C-alpha cells in the first residue's frame, strides 16, 4: 500500500490475550509531538500509569520510527524504542538504527506497541497487513545470530527485517538490548529485559508498501541538497573512513580517554582501539549504513589471528573500544572484536557491560570482591579471559558474580558494600557513557538531567568543544559569542543544553541520526521543519519544530515526576562529582555539588520548572498545551 505519510497508524498487540488492533494517530498530535519519540512518549504517558513494574505485564514497549523514516531524507532511518526502564524505574527512550524502522513503515504501520505478557515465548510476524503471533519456544535461549537466521528460514524470506533479543534479554539482565537488523542495538537501560519479560523473542517484518509525499519534488530536492552538504562535512568523511572509533587516538592525545573505570584519562597503545587500526591491520572488511544514510559509520570486521575463534561480525564501534576496552584496561583488538561479538550475540549493551566489568575490576583490585564472590576469576584490569567469561556469565546469570553484575552497578554496589558505590559510575541506575563529565560542563548538565540516566544519546552537546566552524557558529547563535564554545566554562551551559534538548527530540521524532544535527549540522531545525512541511503538506516552522521538541522533553520529565523523580535524582556519578581529573589539560576538574546546583538552578529556571523539586510549573505545562495530559502533576 502506498500511503500518505501523514496518516500514521499504531499497531497494538496485547500479548496476554493475543488481541491485535490498530489506531490512527490524530494529525494534530503530529504537529504537537512530531512523531517517533514524541508520539511514543505520549503513548507511554497515557498507557503506563505510575508505579507499574517495568518487567511486569503493565509495561508497554513501543517501537516508533521517525515520521520521515522511509523517505530519501539523509540518515533518516532511526527508530525510538520507548518503555518504562527496568534499570532506572523511569522513562526510557532508546534510539537504534538499521533498516527495521523503514520496513515497519512500509508494512503500513508507523508504531508497534506491545502490551501484556505472552504465556510462552512468541514472536510477531508483520507481513504487510497480515499480523501473526507465532510460537518462539524453539528460538528461546538462542543467540541473536542463530535466532535471526532461523526466523528468516522459517518465514522463507531472507530480505525481511528482524528485531530480537538474545539470552540476556530472556534472563532479565538490566542492561540487555534489542538487536535490530543484526548490526544495530537499542541498547541502554534494559529494553531487552522488557521484551524478555513479555516472552517476546522477536519482531519480524515484511513491508512492501511505501509513501507518496505532499510535495514530493521539493522534498526530494531538499533532501538531496542536505545529503550533499552532509557528505562535505569533515566529520562525515572521518566517520566513513574510520567509524566512530576514529576519535580514539585524538582523545588519548588530549588525555580525554576515560580508562580504568574513569580513574585515568589515557591508556598506552590506545591506537589498538582505533578505527584507523582496524583498517590498517586488515580487520576491516566492510562499511555498513543504516537506511537512507550516506555516512556508513558502521564497521564490519573479520578477526585474523583468531585466539578466540574466527569472528566475522559488525563493529566494534567507539563505545566498545571505550567501555570494554580502555575502561577495563584492555587494548587487545582481537579480544575486543570478540567481546563485541559476544555482546551482540547475547544481546547486551556494550556501554553498561564494559562499565559493570570495570567496576568489578576496581572492586576486585581494592579487595571488595574476591574468591567465591568473584566466581574465582582473576579480575585485575586488563584480564581479557575474565572479561570474555564474565560476558557469558552475566548474559546467563551464571554464578554469584554473573547474577550480581546482571543487575547493574547500582544494585551490585549496594550488595558488595564498602566504598564500592563510589566507583559505580552510574546515576539513576544507568551506567554513564565514557564521556568525562568532570571536564565538559554541558555534558555534565545534560547527563545529570537526562530522564534515562547519564548518557549521551539523548542530548549530546558536542558543539561546546567548538571543533568546527559550524559548531562555533551554533554556539554563537545560542549564547551570543563563539568564545563560549569552551567545555570548561560553567556559564551559558544551560542555554546550550536547552537548545540541544529541543533539537535532539525533534531529530529523534523525525527519524534523523543525531550525527547529522548535533555533530555535523547539515540537518538542522530549519530544514527539518521544511522537510516535514513538504512531506506532510502541513506548514511547520522552525520555531514550532523546536517547541515540539521542548514539549516532548517536558512530557518525558512529567513521566519521571509522576514516578517520584525529583531534583535530588538529577546528579552525576560520585566519581564525576568528587574525584578530580588526574592529569592532562583538564587536570583537577570535577563537577561538584555547588557547580551542579548552579547549573540546575539556571536550567530549571529556563524550563519553567520549580527550583526545589524540578517539577514543571503549571504555567509551563499550560503554555506547552500539556494540561490535558500532565495538568495533575504540575506545581503552582
Amino acid at each position, binding site marked *: 500500500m502506498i500511503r500518505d505519510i501523514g496518516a500514521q497508524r499504531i499497531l497494538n498487540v496485547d500479548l496476554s490475550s493475543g488481541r491485535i488492533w490498530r489506531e490512527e494517530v490524530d494529525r494534530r498530535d503530529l504537529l504537537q509531538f512530531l512523531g517517533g519519540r514524541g508520539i511514543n512518549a505520549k503513548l507511554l504517558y497515557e498507557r503506563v500509569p505510575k508505579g507499574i513494574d517495568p518487567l511486569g505485564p503493565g509495561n508497554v514497549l513501543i517501537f516508533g520510527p521517525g515520521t520521515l523514516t522511509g523517505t530519501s531524507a539523509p540518515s533518516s532511518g532511526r527508530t525510538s524504542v520507548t518503555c518504562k526502564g527496568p534499570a532506572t524505574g523511569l522513562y526510557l527512550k532508546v534510539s537504534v538504527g538499521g533498516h527495521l524502522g523503514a520496513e515497519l513503515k512500509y508494512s503500513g504501520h508507523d508504531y508497534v506497541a506491545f502490551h501484556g505478557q505472552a504465556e510462552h515465548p512468541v514472536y510477531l510476524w508483520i507481513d504487510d497487513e497480515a499480523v501473526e503471533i507465532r510460537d518462539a519456544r524453539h528460538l528461546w535461549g538462542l543467540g541473536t545470530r542463530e535466532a535471526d537466521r532461523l526466523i528468516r528460514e522459517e518465514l522463507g524470506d531472507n530480505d525481511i527485517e528482524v528485531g530480537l533479543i538474545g539470552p540476556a534479554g530472556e534472563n532479565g539482565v538490566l542492561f540487555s538490548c534489542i538487536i535490530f537488523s543484526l548490526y544495530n542495538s537499542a541498547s541502554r537501560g534494559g529494553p531487552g529485559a522488557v521484551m524478555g519479560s513479555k516472552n517476546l523473542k522477536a519482531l519480524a517484518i515484511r513491508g512492501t508498501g511505501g509513501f507518496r509525499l505532499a510535495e514530493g519534488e521539493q522534498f526530494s530536492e531538499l533532501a538531496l541538497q542536505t545529503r550533499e552538504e552532509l557528505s562535505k562535512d569533515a566529520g562525515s568523511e572521518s566517520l566513513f573512513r574510520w567509524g566512530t572509533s576514529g576519535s580514539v587516538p*585524538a582523545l588519548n592525545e588530549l588525555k580525554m580517554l576515560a580508562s580504568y573505570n574513569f580513574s585515568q584519562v589515557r591508556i598506552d597503545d590506545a591506537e589498538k582501539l582505533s578505527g584507523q587500526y582496524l583498517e*590498517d591491520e586488515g580487520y576491516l572488511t566492510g562499511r555498513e549504513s543504516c537506511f537512507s544514510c550516506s555516512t556508513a559509520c558502521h564497521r564490519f570486521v573479520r578477526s585474523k589471528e583468531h585466539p578466540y575463534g574466527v569472528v566475522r561480525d559488525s563493529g566494534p564501534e567507539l563505545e566498545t573500544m571505550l567501555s570494554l576496552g580502555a575502561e577495563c584496561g584492555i587494548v587487545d583488538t582481537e579480544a575486543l572484536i570478540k567481546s563485541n561479538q559476544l555482546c551482540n550475540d547475547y544481546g547486551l549493551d556494550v556501554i553498561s557491560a564494559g562499565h559493570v566489568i570495570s567496576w568489578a575490576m576496581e572492586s576486585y583490585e581494592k579487595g571488595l570482591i574476591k574468591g567465591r564472590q568473584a566466581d574465582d576469576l582473576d579480575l585485575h584490569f586488563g584480564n581479557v579471559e575474565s572479561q570474555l567469561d564474565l560476558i557469558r556469565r552475566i548474559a546467563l546469570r551464571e554464578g554469584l558474580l554473573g547474577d550480581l553484575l546482571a543487575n547493574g552497578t547500582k544494585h551490585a554496589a549496594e550488595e558488595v558494600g564498602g566504598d564500592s558505590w563510589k566507583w559505580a559510575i552510574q546515576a539513576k541506575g544507568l551506567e554513564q557513557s565514557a564521556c568525562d563529565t568532570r571536564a565538559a560542563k554541558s555534558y555534565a548538565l545534560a547527563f545529570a538531567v537526562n530522564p534515562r540516566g547519564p548518557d549521551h544519546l539523548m542530548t549530546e552537546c558536542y558543539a561546546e568543544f567548538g571543533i568546527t566552524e559550524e559548531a*562555533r557558529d551554533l554556539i554563537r547563535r545560542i549564547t551570543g559569542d563563539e568564545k563560549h564554545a569552551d567545555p570548561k566554562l560553567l556559564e551559558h551551559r544551560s542555554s546550550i543544553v536547552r537548545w540541544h534538548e529541543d533539537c535532539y527530540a525533534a531529530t529523534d521524532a523525525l527519524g534523523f541520526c543525531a550525527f547529522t544535527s548535533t555533530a555535523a549540522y547539515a540537518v538542522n531545525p530549519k530544514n527539518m521543519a521544511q522537510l516535514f512541511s513538504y512531506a506532510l503538506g502541513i506548514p511547520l516552522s522552525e520555531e514550532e519544530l523546536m517547541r515540539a521538541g521542548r514539549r516532548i522533553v517536558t512530557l518525558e520529565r512529567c513521566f519521571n515526576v509522576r514516578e517520584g523523580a525529583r531534583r535530588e535524582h538529577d546528579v552525576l556519578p560520585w566519581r564525576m562529582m568528587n574525584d578530580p581529573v588526574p592529569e*592532562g589539560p583538564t587536570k583537577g576538574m570535577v563537577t561538584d555539588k555547588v557547580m551542579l546546583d548552579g547549573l540546575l538552578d539556571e536550567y530549571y529556571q529556563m524550563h519553567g520548572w520549580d527550583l526545589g523539586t524540578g517539577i514543571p510549573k503549571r504555567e509551563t505545562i499550560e503554555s506547552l498545551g500539556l494540561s490535558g495530559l500532565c495538568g495533575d502533576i504540575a506545581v503552582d
Partner: protein
Amino acid sequence: MPQVTLRFFGFGGKASGFETRTEEVREGTSLGQLWETLRASAARDDLLARIDETRVTFIHNGELVSHENVHETPLKEGDTVALMVLAVGG
C-alpha cells in the same frame, strides 16, 4: 633551526591517518604559519591540501589551541604539535 614533533591524525596518505615526524621551523614561526607551510607542500589530492583551517583541531604540547590563537602561538624547540580532523563518536 628548532625542531618540533608533528603528529597527524586523520590526514595524509597513510590509511592509518597516523604519522609522526619532526619538522624544522624558523625561530618564532607560529602554529598558523607551520600549518600554511604544510598545506602548501601537500599533494593536491591530500586531505591536508583540501581541508579548511577551521575544520582542523590544533593541539600544542597537549593543549587544545582555540582558533583565534592559532596564528599567535609561537613554536620552539621540542614542542609537539598534533593536527587532527576530529571525528565524532557515540
